[in-house]
């Protein structure tokens, strides 16, 4: 449904004499992936890895530096391609902060009706759409429609945001940490609602979150980011059961068990993620990776080619028998028996 190819966004840093450009934050650096029709693609990663920048790039809220976006077979913002207006009719976003993303001076009903009106719907019809959507997200229109955002709780506001995103009947929703700011009991309500809406309206979700348990519950496929790059992508069961990239494995084992007898005594990783202004050469994870070798600093590991929805790809030298990493062959035997045999058949 959506194909992203070589997407890049570098934020310049100005400073010094004459405010020259002295560097750049490589927020999203050469990211490629595909979102399939009707699926939920989960995007996980730590803060500063570029998840939210990626979401904003997909929505064209900020201009991209390089790369290509193809939505449903049509390039965006090209001559003869989709216009931004058409893209935004098909693709909508829900932000993390439910309060600041609503206009405080509009009753929520008018907030929801605003989009359809801009896109040429009559006032009465837009209001009707807004009321129906409020009903769909579990808020009684008579009770909540005329309220202002400050009169609603966090969970209710986030439901309004979802309703507003659905007002133009889009085909795809980008949910950027949409449930992260909510309390657990409310988060569960909103997640159930999102799953219901997806079935009901036949939606495609890009679900960005740092909560690995939630992503596992809601996603069909998962994409793992580290410092602006994709390190691993694959079906949810595969990734959670057999993560191949050392970063993904460390990230997953940092999940806290709810069993007090199952306490962790040693952290899987030390240190913090490095600064994206000046990322490490080669593999960006090598500074924290327990298996890093010379080859990891010398060249950037390549991601395989994507075939279909069951493809499980990793950008790690240990997965590539030809990379020269000492653990390369052994790991590929244990972790990816299918591809390993193909690789060993090659030479």
């Amino acid at each position, binding site marked *: 449904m959506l194909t992203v190819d070589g997407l890049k966004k570098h934020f310049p840093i100005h400073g010094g004499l004459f405010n020259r450009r002295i560097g750049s934050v490589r927020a999203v650096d050469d990211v490629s992936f595909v979102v399939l029709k009707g699926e939920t693609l989960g995007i996980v990663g730590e803060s500063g890895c570029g998840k939210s920048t990626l979401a904003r790039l997909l929505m064209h809220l900020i201009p991209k530096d390089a790369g290509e976006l193809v939505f449903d077979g049509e390039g965006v913002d090209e001559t003869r391609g989709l216009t931004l207006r058409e893209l935004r009719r098909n693709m909508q976003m829900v932000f993390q902060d439910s309060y600041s993303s609503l206009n405080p001076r509009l009753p929520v009903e008018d907030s929801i009706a605003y989009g359809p009106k801009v896109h040429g719907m009559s006032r009465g019809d837009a209001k009707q759409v807004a009321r129906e959507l409020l009903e769909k997200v579990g808020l009684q229109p008579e009770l909540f429609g005329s309220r202002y955002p400050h009169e609603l709780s966090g969970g209710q506001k986030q439901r309004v945001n979802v309703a507003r995103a659905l007002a133009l009947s889009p085909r795809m929703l980008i949910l950027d940490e949409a449930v992260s700011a909510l309390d657990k009991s409310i988060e*569960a309500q909103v997640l159930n609602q999102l799953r219901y809406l997806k079935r009901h309206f036949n939606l495609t979700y890009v679900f960005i979150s740092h909560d690995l348990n939630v992503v596992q519950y809601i996603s069909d496929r998962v994409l793992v980011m580290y410092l602006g790059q994709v390190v691993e992508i694959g079906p949810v069961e595969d990734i959670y059961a057999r993560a191949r990239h050392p970063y993904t494995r460390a990230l997953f084992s*940092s999940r806290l068990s709810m069993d007090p007898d199952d306490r962790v005594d040693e952290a899987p990783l030390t240190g913090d993620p490095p600064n994206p202004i000046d990322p490490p050469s080669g593999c960006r994870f090598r500074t924290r990776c327990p298996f890093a070798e010379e080859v990891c600093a010398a060249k950037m590991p390549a991601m395989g080619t994507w075939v279909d929805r069951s493809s499980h790809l990793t950008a790690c030298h240990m997965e590539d028998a030809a990379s020269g990493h000492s653990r390369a062959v052994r790991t590929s035997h244990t972790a990816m028996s299918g591809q390993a045999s193909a690789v060993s058949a090659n030479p």
Partner: protein
Amino acid sequence: MALQFSVTNAELKPHAAVARRPLVEVKDLKVKFVSREATVQAVNGVSFEMAPGEVLCIIGESGSGKSVTMRALMRLLPRRRAVLSGAMRVGDYNIRALSERQLTQVRGSTISMVFQEPMTALDPVYTIGAQIAETVIRHESCSYKAGMARALELLQVVKVPSPERRLKAYPHELSGGLRQRAMIALALSCRPSLLLADEPTTALDATVQIQVLILLRKLQKELGMGVIFVTHDLGVAAQIADKVAVMYAGRIVEYGNVRDVLIRPSHPYTMAMLASTIHAGQSRDKEIEAIPGSPPDMRRLPPGCSFAPRCRYADRGCTSAVPPPTVVAPSHLACCFNTGRPGQAAPQEESA
């Protein structure tokens, strides 16, 4: 300064300390915030005791009064707006009777606190070293040099890499994880007997959060201090707590050993909260058992049990009075009318 200490002790607590007396005793603590528009009843009768060297986790959703309870223990609430009642004792100090002067003595040396946001809690215009040294000098009246030496030692204790360099760093020059470690070093600088940790790992990334949790657990064991740890994350509580107190609408609704509360919960709210939290590998075919409704408006609390409007086991009796703590097992309390009764409503449902 030693003299001053002994005088205050005599004033506040005339009788000698009994061995293994609880480190913290809170009795019927109530906090109201009064403004022109409304009165918010943030804490509504919280009582608990805590032994020295114990880790108590207070779990609750936002607005349940957990942070306000912590701030009350540190006397950090605004004096004009917050109306307190009830009794609080930490060590030899009656917290509510302390003068401003005594408070500055107690804060940092007996009780200290780690906040959620190290960036706003640390002073941006002083180096990390200077901030730690200031606290040490203030409480131990030593020289600046000795203070800095102690600061360096503390940064080593909290495992900050290249501590000599970090001593001269300003808070904005550190990453989130290092900043939180510096904050912990600052809190531990005068060997407090009670550390209040208000969501110290919530703002951190998963891979960093676990490092800080392990560090806190290790330091707590080594220094033998009591820790009250506020969190909304059940996973964090499972990692660090000895005892758990679950708060809802300004009251403790369940209290007990971490195993008892998280594995055999007795209060319907605790059960519902556990069920609505997505755990690793949860079945994707089923809906999550969400708690219906939303937490009560703290300006207008419902009568009786505050959880009754959302509780699936609630009956008419629940709204008539606030349920008192009932013993469900040794050192395991729950405030629910139904758990105390023979033929308990809740566990029956669970087994069915």
